[in-house]
């Protein structure tokens, strides 16, 4: 196991310092982040432009900058129908991408996603309960009770995991095993509800599990955006610790990082992001898993770039899925949860084929 490399990456005659060499990587990563942000902006415009009443992206851009120049019908289409829908794709995708990235790091597991610990299943159980037993509490309508119930259950599931982890130690395996046990338990309860539900309720539950942006409104977008942009600075503040954690738990501990504490804080953040995002759109599972992998391939694992990159990649994936959901079957709006995998897998496979050795 020789230490000497046969493929040196720095030439002996090269007088540049390692820091100067390393700054090239930083430059590429910044460029990749900008590229992702640019692709996201284009995708947002295309998403707004796509639909039964077709609009040109240029027309959409002009309509967003000068809404007063639009005719009444187009203004309603752009500002009240499609913009909330397209922005919701960005915010939910961003939240799930960020949550997935943090989850994969603290659980040291590339297969981890916000659904690993049963948070998604808990949201589904909450929504299913609200559908099967449509009880209005405190004068709230069923339209509010459904996302509220999903949020409460997702948060409760996260709380339970955190509580158990607190008592039994927040080791990676402990957290994952608790999560998996909870996932199976919740899925069984959802199955039971589906069994006793009448035809209409069953259809609604199935529709919820497919995930849909059709429930978007500008208020809901604002809620998800608020949570995402409140969580992101806290994530970035811990980016050095999270990067150090990628070397290994023992290594991180030796640096004075309180790994269990870090893991609990991140899980609280992930739970919040996931619960809020899913409560408005239903189950959209693929983004939190694949978004971080795309970011990792493009940007590496320095979390200063990896975390925002995962949020951007998640947002881009869901935005592209949103466009595809309107185009795949002309005249029919497919639930976006089904389309995410169809759009994401080819993109993901292309990346694996071109840069797979770096996974």
């Amino acid at each position, binding site marked *: 196991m020789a230490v000497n490399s046969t493929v040196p990456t720095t030439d002996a005659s090269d007088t540049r*310092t390692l820091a100067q060499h390393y700054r090239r990587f930083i430059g590429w990563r910044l460029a990749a982040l900008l590229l992702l942000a640019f692709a996201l902006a284009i995708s947002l415009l295309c998403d707004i432009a796509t639909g039964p009443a077709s609009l040109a992206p240029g027309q959409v851009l002009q309509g967003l900058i000068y809404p007063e120049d639009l005719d009444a019908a187009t203004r309603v289409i752009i500002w009240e129908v499609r913009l909330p829908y397209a922005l919701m794709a960005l915010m939910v995708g961003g939240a799930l991408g960020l949550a997935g990235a943090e989850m994969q790091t603290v659980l040291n597991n590339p297969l981890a996603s916000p659904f690993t610990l049963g948070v998604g299943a808990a949201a589904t159980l909450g929504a299913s309960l609200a559908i099967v037993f449509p009880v209005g509490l405190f004068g709230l309508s069923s339209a509010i009770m459904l996302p509220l119930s999903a949020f409460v259950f997702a948060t409760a599931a996260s709380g339970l995991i955190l509580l158990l982890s607190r008592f039994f130690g927040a080791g990676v395996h402990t957290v994952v095993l608790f999560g998996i046990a909870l996932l199976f338990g919740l899925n069984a309860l959802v199955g039971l509800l589906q069994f006793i539900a009448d035809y209409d309720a069953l259809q609604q539950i199935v529709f919820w599990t497919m995930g849909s942006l059709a429930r978007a409104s500008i208020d809901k977008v604002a809620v998800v955006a608020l949570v995402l942009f409140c969580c992101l600075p806290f994530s970035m503040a811990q980016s050095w*610790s999270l990067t150090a954690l990628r070397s290994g738990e023992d290594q991180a501990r*030796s640096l004075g990082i309180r790994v269990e504490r870090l893991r609990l804080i991140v899980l609280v953040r992930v739970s919040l992001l996931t619960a809020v995002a899913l409560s408005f759109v239903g189950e959209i599972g693929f983004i939190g898993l694949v978004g971080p992998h795309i970011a990792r391939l493009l940007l590496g694992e320095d979390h200063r770039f990896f975390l925002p990159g995962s949020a951007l990649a998640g947002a881009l994936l869901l935005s592209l899925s949103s466009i595809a959901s309107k185009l795949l079957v002309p005249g029919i709006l497919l639930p976006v949860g089904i389309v995410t995998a169809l759009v994401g897998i080819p993109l993901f496979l292309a990346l694996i084929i071109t840069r797979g050795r770096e996974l």
Partner: protein
Amino acid sequence: MSLWIRELTAGYRRRTVLEGIALQPFPEGSLIGVIGRNGAGKSTLLKSLAGLQPYRGDVLFDNQPINLKKWGTLASQLGYLPQSLPQPTSLIAYETVFSASRAMINSFDRAKLEAAIERVFATLGIRELALRKLSELSGGQRQMIGLAQVLVRSPRLLLLDEPTSALDLHWQLNVLNCVRDVTREQEATAMVAIHDINLALRFCDQLLVLGQGGVLAQGPAREVLTPEVLREAYGIEGRIERCSNGTPIVLCDRAIEH
């Protein structure tokens, strides 16, 4: 005196590994080899000193007690290399070392840190690995990166848990030479858990032999090992011979049946 250990008891929930060990104080600039059989408590001792494992007793470093609750300030003076290797992730070796230092300190001088990283990569002879991903490196190469993470902070107390376990002969000598130079030049104290007794005899100033939950022997490396100590510590019959340059060398004859 730099490091003083009194009545230290440490272990796990249901098993005490080290029971009330007391050591003679180690002077500054010592390179201390910790040897003993598997499970003798070498890693437990280092983890306890590093503040990563609860213990009872007193550990004084520069006459100050090592307090687990003050681990944040302690970490800047301690450099602990765990037995496990850094994971083969897509992190670049350079940023592994950089981020490790940044994760520890809030305010830092970038130029100083970059110069320290440059110096450590050159000292260890691994400059050519600096821009490669950990996933592309062998286990031995990653062990060197782990060591660079420790040395870059110029700690005053180095605790290295089997730093040569994944290295070939050339790099074993290189690493121990480097650690010895660091202890002498920076007046740091280094405690190194090691399985190769002959390497320990060659490089260490002091040896600490652990076994049966306690200290079997402690003293200058060239004096502490005897056939009786070898029998008690390792369950072997062995001899201590001298090389032509006077360095003691252990020759193992056979394992004693239990």
